[in-house]
């Protein structure tokens, strides 16, 4: 057994443990100096990235990778599952890849972006903790464990949103986020308690196998509603999105980009609940959430673009844009769910549902890259000019050439102009959801054009225009920030040029994972 095999076998635990170890070591390493600590953190995340890709190579070949914490012994004693389990399938690893890309970019970016700040040890500790939480959320196979990681993520992100404590608005945004996310998390806990009380299990696979059409009752419905409401709220779906633009907009740019990942981890929670936990009862009419998802997606999209149109704060505007992008994911996946949960229809005869889901899932990673890049650009502009209002900016394309180019790439990608990656996933969504109802595709196209208008407005008011005396001597963003933006931009172009490759390797296993919940549920009894 060579070292790679051992690493692969241990990777689910190590992916969570490595950033956690890094987080605890950071205050100690921080005593050794600025550069040492930053290199250490980048190495920690690079190792994590290596482990994620190692695990991905295994999961993408069709396995579901499980990991038992604390022992190799069989975990099923008669009818109970003991010990915490990690269960990694295509969707989990897909989300883990997004997380690792975003956090790596954020850390590289922070090198220069956070140079002047105080309390950096705590900043990096919290950042790594947040990453840990996100990894835990997407990899775990245990419902209670999911809650714990959800809390870790939200506590760490609260502290990070309020990192610029001298700004009253940042503190206010963090407070609002804390209130709403705590209440949401408590509802999650409550519904987990309901399910535990009824089915005597916390393991997602075990629970899912016990929730059957026969046993389905009031309490299952109630848990589903609470889980769904809390997680969609944490994912920022309208009309429970109000915390999101504030939180995204007020946090430091390097945190906004990780927050994108945190929101998407909650989105993962929604999908896991709808498709896997309630996978056996998906065809019961009360659980047919497809249309609800689709309509929530449309509302999110429209509210996002309309509100973004009138924003004048750079980052808040992008945050509303990100909101609109979330709507596309819900639209795509919701269309799939509608077909999947209708007993009269089947995926085989309605292949568009599969395509819509592929589009929705593909859009998750595209959104992470595009919106992430835009946030980083916004941070770079703030770093150079100390201005965040679009009304006071102008003409900085003269001084910041590379940043302008990166913004242009992000602009094209987020509004889905060919040949960027956003176009590929939106094309998939448009060309499939119309079969459920033509109006869906029409609104999606409209929202995408409005997104373009919004981003062009930013491009004009921040980057173009006459020379402004105040910005005469501003300089290009430092190298580390350019590198972070460059990583995301090159991924955007790569994904845009080879959409077929990405869909086949990354997206397909993720879609397969949620459309075939039985393989996830049945691994306990040995079936695949």
């Amino acid at each position, binding site marked *: 057994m060579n070292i790679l095999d051992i690493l692969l076998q241990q990777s689910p635990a190590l992916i969570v443990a490595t950033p956690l170890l890094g987080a605890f070591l950071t205050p100690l390493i921080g005593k050794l100096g600025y550069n040492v600590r930053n290199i250490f953190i980048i190495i920690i995340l690079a190792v994590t990235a290596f482990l994620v890709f190692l695990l991905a190579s295994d999961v993408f070949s069709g396995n579901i990778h499980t990991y038992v914490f604390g022992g190799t012994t069989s975990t099923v004693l008669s009818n109970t599952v003991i010990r915490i389990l990690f269960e990694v399938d295509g969707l989990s690893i897909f989300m883990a890849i997004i997380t690792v890309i975003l956090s790596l970019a954020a850390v590289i970016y922070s090198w220069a972006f956070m140079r002047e700040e105080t309390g950096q040890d705590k900043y990096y500790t919290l950042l790594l903790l947040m990453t840990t939480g996100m990894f835990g959320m997407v990899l775990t196979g245990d419902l209670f464990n999911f809650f714990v990681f959800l809390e870790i993520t939200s506590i760490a992100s609260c502290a990070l949103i309020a990192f610029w404590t001298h700004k009253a608005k940042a503190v206010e945004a963090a407070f609002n986020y804390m209130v709403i996310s705590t209440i949401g998390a408590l509802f999650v806990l409550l519904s987990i308690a309901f399910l535990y009380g009824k089915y005597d299990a916390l393991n997602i696979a075990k629970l899912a196998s016990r929730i059957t059409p026969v046993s389905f009752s009031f309490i299952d419905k109630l848990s589903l509603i609470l889980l769904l409401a809390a997680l969609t709220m944490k994912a920022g779906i309208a009309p429970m999105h109000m915390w999101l633009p504030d939180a995204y907009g007020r946090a430091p740019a390097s945190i906004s980009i990780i927050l994108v990942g945190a929101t998407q981890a909650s989105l993962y929670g929604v999908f896991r609940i709808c498709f896997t936990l309630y996978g056996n009862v998906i065809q019961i009419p009360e659980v047919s959430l497809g249309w609800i998802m689709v309509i929530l997606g449309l509302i999110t999209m429209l509210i996002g673009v309309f509100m973004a149109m009138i924003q004048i704060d750079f980052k808040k505007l992008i945050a509303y844009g990100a909101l609109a992008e979330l709507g596309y994911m819900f639209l795509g996946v919701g269309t799939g769910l509608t077909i999947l949960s209708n007993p009269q229809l089947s995926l085989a005869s309605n292949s568009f549902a599969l395509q819509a889901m592929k589009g929705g899932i593909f859009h998750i990673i595209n959104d992470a890259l595009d919106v992430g890049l835009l946030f980083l650009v916004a941070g770079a502009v703030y770093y150079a000019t100390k201005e965040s209002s679009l009304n006071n900016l102008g003409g900085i394309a003269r001084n910041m050439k590379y940043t302008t180019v990166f913004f242009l790439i992000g602009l094209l990608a987020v509004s889905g*102009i060919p040949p960027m990656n956003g176009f590929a996933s939106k*094309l998939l969504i448009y060309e499939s959801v119309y079969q459920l109802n*033509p109006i869906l595709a029409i609104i999606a196209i409209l929202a995408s*054009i*409005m997104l*373009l*208008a919004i981003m*062009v407005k930013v491009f004009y008011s921040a980057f173009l*225009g*006459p020379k402004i005396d105040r910005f005469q001597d501003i300089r290009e963003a430092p190298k580390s920030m350019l590198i972070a933006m460059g990583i995301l931009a090159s991924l955007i172009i790569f994904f845009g040029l080879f959409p077929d490759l990405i869909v086949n390797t990354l997206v397909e296993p993720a879609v397969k994972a949620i459309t075939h919940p039985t393989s996830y549920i049945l691994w306990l009894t040995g079936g695949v």
Partner: protein
Amino acid sequence: MDIGTVSITILTVIFGAIGVTLFGIIIGLLYKGIDRKIAAHMQGRVGPPIRQPFLDVIKLFVKENIVPDNAIPWVFHLAPIIGLIASITILLYLPIGGFPAVLDGIITSKGDLILLLYLLIIPSLALVTGGFSSGSPYAIVGAQREMATMIAYEFPLAIIIVTIAWRLSLMQNVSHVFTLSTITSIPLWNILGPLGFIGMILLLLTLIIVTPAELSKIPFDAPEAETEIAGGLLVEYSGRNLAMFYLTDAVKTVAMGSIIIALFFPYNLSPILSMNGYPAYIIDFLFYLLKLFLVILFSVTLIRVGVARLKIDQIVYTYWVPLTLLALIGLICIMWDQTIMTQFGIPSVVEILGLT
């Protein structure tokens, strides 16, 4: 894939691109001349000669290419080029006369309606970016109006495109309904019943009113509005950069006309006259030019001469309320058509007229 196929593919793309560029520019300018001539006659003037647009372009190439102080030079120069290229690439996906589209079948790539919708955005986007980058208040006002117009007309346009694809997707044994070759091979007129026929006419009407906005022509030329903001987003452009935009406009007219033809009038003369070989290509090409002329005449020239300019908020209102409603009624007609046809056994319009 062996070397031979690869080289043939590459050569096809290269020569196709060159051919389409020449075709687009020449035909575009020619139709611009015809358009001006007809408009002049309608207004009781003599008008310039038909070759006037060619002369205009040549003159612009000779003129100085001024870069204003307030402009960001690289964006200012790049925008016109990107706009022109993108509008030419639209033509690569469109069937012209009896010829299939240049990019059809290159590594199984085919023209796609949504792709065309987005490619149509790029020239407008280039125009907007160019206007914004020139740093003049007139240009900026014009550019933001162009963007608002774009949001406005994209709504009915999306309805038209999705409706057509949706109707095709109901048919048995038809896949890839967004592909242009599918759409041109099954004209919807042939399969729709009376209600759907009315819907289709409504959609065509909407598309004809969308076209002048897409091409920034009166009554939707608020972005340029010479009398009001002095040429709007083009105010700072001159010389060869302006020539690029001039050509973009010409090529885009051809592209937009060709899209209307592909969506609504994909018929060719040669099957009716049972011709084939070179004569068929020639007669189809001439017929295509005629169709293009009629489309441009109705959607550009007549509307342009007949009505006055709208205010920008009126434009948005026009597209988002009356025209969207019109297109939605078309959509609903077409949606109900299928049910009504099967329920009451109504034959399609073509069968009623006995044209099959």
